[in-house]
């Protein structure tokens, strides 16, 4: 049955939200005009309309979730993003996996923020919410999915489309009410807890950037050129914090789940959020200067506006499909590019016009003293913008190609072939500058400086950082000059900010936000420096086989081939690949595939034996076991030079939509992480190719060879039950017990079964497969005349994996730095907010 009512309800809510947003913009616009006769009345209408808008949006969210939760696969969105076996928390992820859903979560956050502003913005409510509502108009239009009659113009893409309206399949001609049994499921890369919290965090960050922008526009509009900064400041900090954490969460997710060997790939989609964040942080510093001494209004306005326009630009980049050729994870084109361009242009024009109108009226910043804090912070903001610019220029290469093609020029420009080297060459030196500034500017910040004072303040931190840096050099073996410079600069930033922190302790801990955040940034820099600069591929191919004489210098095979159970040396480690494992729904740990017998259903297996985990039995022989069939884990045992053992389970899946996906497993150490992923595994869909069976007549106690190993037929035993074969009373089943002695004293037992079905007068056998030895033994005949049996054996290729391993030194500094950044921002936001509240109480705002 097609549940049309829910989709229609959802779509109805979308239309309401759109109309209400337009209406709210109109009402708030009139409420904030000076010449309005009854501003209070307009304000009231504004509140009502924005309230309706928010409620309608919540209705849209609820409808879409209802469709996904109830598995209404007649809806395209549910069908293409969800499936029946998906647990609830991943249903939430598939909610925003699609482009429409991610727009939805974005406007949902903005509606919430709008409601908060409505309550707390005071005199700023009307102009600020006019801007917020106007932005919502554009965002809601993206999921409107309405066709303008007569013009054949489609606005937005609705998440409430029925499958039959989107897909052309012959089945709908036969039966328009056809509903697929199951959806295609959630992209497996997104089935990770980081992906449940990372996108909403990022979109909350995106939504938060709207608040300072709205305040800024309101300030320009109302000609209160610097008054907007105080209320906007804690919002700006919050936006910088949440967006920054969102970016780092994405990095952490990439580190844990993707096999590109790190947390940052300079992918255009990553860059598209990094660029506005840098500008946002620069703007934040301008606002802080303004709060301190009333200057820097123009830069604060400019940075805030540019930051928001960059958010729009990055939205355009990632959602218009323009990056299709250069990014692995941008959205495909939903036909929204025109609309997105319109959205961006509308705000470019609006903000540009306001800035041009007010430029002359804004207070200009007088020439600043080199010993003033303003000067140094301004330099810092300049470096941040240059960093942003350097990333923005190459990331926009696909845009240049498109623009050139409008003029009939084939530009054919491609992104730099080695983005890491390309970007690092610049970003590293900018980072050095930032580290030095963040260390020094803090001293300027807290006291009046002149040359003599500066010298005395800097001597101690400089000496201490040099000592620490030289100790680090000895311990860490940093050779490359540019890394050396960055190391010293970053250590200096940590040390000097730490001194500032010590100096503050006696005065007020509430002021510590800046230095804690700066220490965090410096530690992030150190972490990046070591984990990427000194990341080492340790899985060098040491077999000595060249793949081509011609390219001897180029040979750089960074993978190791591991045969099942055959130890292989890799640097200081001894590696053994121990087979394929699965994860079950109701049992912890990894379960060996040999313990499970597949059934017709891909996620249902039957246990071949008992399964224990940490001494507790979870299932026994014959029990059915629900597994996650998508993922196969490859058990790799490491033994280091000291004899210490640990086990990693890198995983891989062959996904019908995404192809082969490998995810690493990480052994976390204090000094470094050992990062391992599989590069190639045998195709699980390809059936094993067995060699022709060779028959052998064997008596009990005889020794014979199985795949070059010595084996013994230990005995025969009649059995009453055979796995997977129902036996009658009269049937006879005999099991042969064969012991095989392999390398290193390990033993394997094969127990093939011979079955005589008396009523059918047929015989059959159940072979025993030993994966570790890649042999199959079948018990094919009994010869009572000379007390022997026939064992036939066939061989196959041994199971293998090709694996890549990397050492990531000191990556923990990166994560610790992130934590400190959050704490520092937290302190700062709290301080700004309580200041603002105090002022509001005094009636000054």
């Amino acid at each position: 049955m097609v549940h049309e009512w829910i989709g229609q309800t959802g779509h109805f809510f979308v239309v309401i939200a759109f109309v209400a947003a337009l209406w709210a913009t109109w009402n708030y616009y009139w409420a904030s005009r000076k010449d309005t006769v009854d501003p209070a009345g307009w304000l009231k209408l504004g509140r009502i309309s924005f309230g309706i808008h928010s409620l309608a949006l919540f209705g849209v969210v609820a409808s879409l979730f209802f469709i996904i939760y109830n598995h209404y696969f007649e809806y395209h969105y549910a069908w293409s993003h969800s499936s029946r076996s998906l647990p609830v928390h991943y249903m939430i992820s598939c909610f925003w996996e699609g482009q429409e859903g991610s727009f939805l979560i974005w406007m949902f956050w903005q509606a919430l923020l709008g409601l908060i502003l409505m309550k707390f913005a005071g005199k700023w409510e009307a102009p600020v919410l006019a801007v917020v509502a106007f932005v919502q108009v554009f965002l809601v239009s993206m999921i409107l999915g309405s066709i303008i009659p007569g013009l054949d113009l489609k606005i937005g893409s609705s998440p409430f489309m029925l499958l039959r309206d989107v897909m052309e399949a012959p089945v709908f001609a036969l039966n328009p009410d056809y509903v697929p049994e199951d959806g295609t499921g959630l992209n497996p890369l997104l089935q990770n807890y980081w992906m449940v919290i990372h996108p909403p965090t990022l979109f909350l960050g995106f939504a938060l950037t709207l608040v300072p922008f709205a305040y800024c526009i309101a300030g320009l509009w109302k000609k209160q050129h610097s008054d907007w900064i105080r209320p906007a400041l804690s919002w700006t900090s919050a936006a910088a914090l949440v967006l920054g954490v969102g970016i780092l969460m994405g990095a952490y997710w990439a580190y844990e789940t993707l096999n590109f060997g790190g947390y940052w790939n300079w992918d255009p989609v990553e860059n598209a959020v990094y660029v506005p964040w840098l500008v946002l942080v620069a703007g934040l510093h301008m606002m802080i200067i303004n709060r301190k001494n009333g200057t820097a209004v123009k830069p604060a306005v400019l940075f805030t506006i540019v930051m928001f326009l960059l958010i729009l630009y990055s939205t355009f980049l990632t959602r218009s499909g323009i990056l299709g050729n250069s990014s692995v994870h941008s959205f495909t084109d939903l036909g929204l590019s025109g609309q997105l361009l319109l959205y961006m242009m509308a705000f470019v024009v609006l903000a540009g016009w306001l800035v041009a109108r007010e430029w002359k009226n804004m207070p200009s910043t007088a020439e600043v003293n080199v010993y003033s804090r303003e000067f140094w912070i301004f330099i810092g903001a300049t470096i941040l913008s240059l960093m942003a610019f350097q990333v923005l220029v190459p990331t926009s290469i696909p845009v240049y190609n498109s623009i050139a093609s409008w003029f009939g020029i084939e530009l054919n420009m491609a992104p730099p072939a080695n983005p890491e080297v390309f970007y690092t060459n610049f970003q590293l030196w900018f980072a050095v500058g930032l580290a030095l500034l963040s260390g020094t500017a803090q001293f300027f910040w807290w006291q009046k400086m002149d040359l003599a004072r500066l010298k005395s303040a800097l001597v101690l931190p400089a000496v201490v950082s040099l000592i620490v840096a030289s100790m680090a050099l000895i311990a860490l073996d940093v050779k490359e000059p540019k890394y050396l410079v960055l190391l010293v600069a970053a250590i200096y930033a940590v040390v000097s900010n730490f001194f500032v922190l010590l100096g503050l302790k006696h005065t007020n801990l509430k002021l510590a936000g800046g230095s804690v955040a700066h220490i965090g940034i410096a530690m992030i820099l150190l972490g990046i420096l070591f984990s990427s600069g000194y990341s080492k591929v340790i899985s060098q191919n040491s077999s000595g086989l060249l793949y081509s004489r011609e390219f001897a210098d180029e040979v750089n095979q960074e993978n190791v081939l591991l045969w099942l159970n055959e130890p292989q040396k890799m640097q200081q480690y001894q590696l053994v690949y121990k087979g394929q494992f699965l994860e079950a729904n109701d049992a912890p740990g990894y379960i060996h595939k040999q313990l499970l017998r597949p059934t017709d259903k891909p996620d249902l297996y039957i246990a071949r034996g008992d399964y224990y985990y940490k001494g507790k039995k979870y299932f026994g022989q014959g029990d059915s076991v629900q597994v996650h069939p998508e993922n196969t884990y490859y058990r790799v045992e490491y033994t280091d030079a000291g004899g210490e053992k640990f086990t990693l389970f890198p995983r891989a899946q062959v996904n019908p939509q995404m192809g082969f996906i490998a995810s690493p497993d990480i052994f976390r150490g204090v000094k470094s992480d050992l990062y391992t992923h599989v590069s190639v595994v045998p195709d699980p869909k390809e059936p094993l190719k067995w060699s022709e069976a060779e028959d052998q007549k064997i008596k009990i106690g005889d020794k014979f060879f199985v795949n070059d190993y010595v084996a013994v037929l230990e005995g025969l035993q009649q059995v009453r039950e055979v796995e997977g074969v129902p036996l009658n009373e009269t049937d006879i089943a005999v099991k042969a017990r064969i012991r095989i002695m392999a390398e290193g004293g390990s033993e394997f037992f094969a127990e093939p079964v011979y079955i005589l079905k008396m009523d059918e007068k047929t015989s059959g056998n159940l072979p025993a497969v030993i994966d570790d030895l890649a042999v199959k033994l079948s018990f094919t005949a009994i010869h009572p005349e000379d007390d022997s049996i026939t064992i036939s054996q066939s061989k196959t290729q041994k199971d293998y994996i090709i694996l890549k391993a990397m050492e990531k030194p000191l990556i923990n500094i990166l994560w610790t730095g992130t934590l400190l950044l959050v704490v520092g921002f937290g302190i700062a936001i709290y301080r700004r907010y309580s200041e603002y509240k105090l002022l509001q109480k005094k009636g000054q705002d």
Partner: protein
Amino acid sequence: MKFSHILGILVIAVAVIIIISTTGDASSYVDFKEAKAMAVSDTREIHVVGTLKKDAQGHVTGIMPAADKLSFSFLMIDEKGEEQQVFYNNPMPPDFLRSEQVVVIGRYQGNSFVAGQILLKCPSKYQEQELQPTQQAQFN
């Protein structure tokens, strides 16, 4: 001259350097013929877009894995239809044979193209999967 002016000039200078270096380091999409010509004069890596060579039955031909499986070479046909053997120093990417289009990033060394990276475009990677009612043809 005010200090801010000096600063402004500096910023513009850095911006110009950034733009120049971007155009300098940006790679380009070319065909094998151009790639060969370019390899003589500069050391930049370039992108070549093409498809795998297939026989009449549509099977990919010309794949030559190394004995240890840790590298391989293959035959690729660029957009102009030129065929070229491409060497790659890593194991074959698992969806390689299913790919609809491949982009190799690398450069010519002598008469062979050595790829440092391979980007694959698989037919279903970004498209919605086809609806397949055959396996679930139940009519409610």
